[in-house]
């Protein structure tokens, strides 16, 4: 066990003596230390008085602090800061069972759909890869067909790199560019129409690239020449 240094012991002893002396010296007048005026006021106001800053009674002699302010501890704390609820109450439900049940049903529905669909429709497997036979048309996976469609209109550097790059960057920056704080649809008409245009632009390009492009990636109609598309 650590030894307590001597000077600390001395200091503790001195403090103890001082406290004992002060207690014995003040024992007699202790009852007089709360002024009568304050006691009366407490009686008059009842329990509520602790939260209400009472007007200082005239001629109040004792307890005056520097500058003549008369305060009791609890009157310093404004009632709002201890009574006010900081967060507005939110209407909440238990995750189990309300959310988990929904998630469970959704995942079951999805897996059943996939199971049945995979049972009926086979994934494509064409002939083994052959570098000497280029199929006509050669198409990218469907989600890149919008880009391939752009390739027919622009230089590859624009269509294949710049435009998709700018698109992804614009998407990432959306929350920092859109300074409108509201999430109500009626306040966001401009940005929602911009986004709808953006999404429709890609959707239309992908649909054209998938179904309306035939041999040589030339424009065609699926009902006239058939569909040149594999998933």
């Amino acid at each position, binding site marked *: 066990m650590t030894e307590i240094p001597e000077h600390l012991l001395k200091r503790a002893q001195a403090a103890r003596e001082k406290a004992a002396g002060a207690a014995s010296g003040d024992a007699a007048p202790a009852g007089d230390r709360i002024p009568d005026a304050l006691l009366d006021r407490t009686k008059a106001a009842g329990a509520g008085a602790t939260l209400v800053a009472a007007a200082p009674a005239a001629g109040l002699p004792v307890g005056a602090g520097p500058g003549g302010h008369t305060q009791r501890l609890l009157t310093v704390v404004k009632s709002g800061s201890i009574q006010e609820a900081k967060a507005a109450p*939110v*209407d*909440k*439900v*238990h*995750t*189990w*069972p*309300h*959310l*988990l049940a*929904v*998630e469970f049903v*959704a*995942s079951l529905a*999805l*897996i059943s759909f*996939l*199971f049945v*669909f*995979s*049972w009926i*429709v086979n*994934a*494509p*497997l*064409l*002939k*083994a*890869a*052959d570098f000497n*036979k*280029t*199929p006509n048309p*050669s*198409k*990218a*996976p469907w*989600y*890149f067909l919008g*880009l*391939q469609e752009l390739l027919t209109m622009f*230089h*590859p*550097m624009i269509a*294949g*790199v710049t435009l998709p790059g700018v698109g992804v960057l614009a*998407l*990432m920056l959306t*929350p*920092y560019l859109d300074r409108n*704080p509201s*999430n*109500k*649809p009626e306040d*966001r008409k401009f940005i929602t129409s911009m*986004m709808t245009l953006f*999404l429709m632009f890609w959707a239309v390009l992908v649909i054209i690239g998938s179904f309306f492009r035939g041999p040589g990636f030339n424009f065609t109609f699926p009902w006239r020449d058939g569909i040149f598309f*594999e*998933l």
Partner: protein
Amino acid sequence: MAKVLDNPRPTLKERAAQIGQQLQGSQAWNSIFRPGSIFRKGYTDSPRNRSYVIMNSVLYHLHPVKVKRHAVKVSYTLCLGGLSFFLFILLTVTGIFLMFFYRPTGANAWQDIQTLQTSVTFGLLVRNMHRWSAHLMVLSVFLHMARVFYHGAYKPPREFNWVIGVVLLTLTLLLSFTGYLLPWDQLALWAVTVGTNMMGYSPVIGSQVRFVLLGGVEIGSETLLRWYVLHVLMLPFVIVIFMAIHFWRVRKDGGISGPL
């Protein structure tokens, strides 16, 4: 005779119930399922136990104990984010199955898929599920993004989570694209040729990027191995990290957005 009637032989149902009781009362069972678990004996529907179901499960505590009432409406989220995650899990499971039967070399890849479809039990079904799930995941992630946008859910304090989400969309596309090459059939080869030709046009570093990705100047066996490693190891590793941040931020940013 009377004694027999007093103690008739227990029926099968009673025996099953008794075994169930014993099992659920055993120390082993109770050590596996923590208090409040719905698999515990004597789960009663109380607010305390509803909280325990979430708090005491390593999987469920992705969720908070309570969620906003409007958030559990299917019409609000259409379950799109959750289904994307579910599809990812499904793709992982079916993908592991496929890995047992696949060798990423130019000489074997196509034949392995062919064998998988014709000679492996459930091989064709699992391959189909893997492929359709992959396409569906691209679609669901895309639709999830649209849903989040139209709800204005990318607004403060959720800006950064939207950025993570765009990264996840890109990673989903890359995962799908790298997987597209692996069957090593005519469709895969030429679709990837078209795709990588576009990358070659990147300014300044285009040809270098293409060389690194293809493992050569043309698509070949090296490309197959590279994309295989990207597809089964590297990209899933990266996407899991980003998904973890994404889900964590959903909760830290105050749960789901709204109501509108």
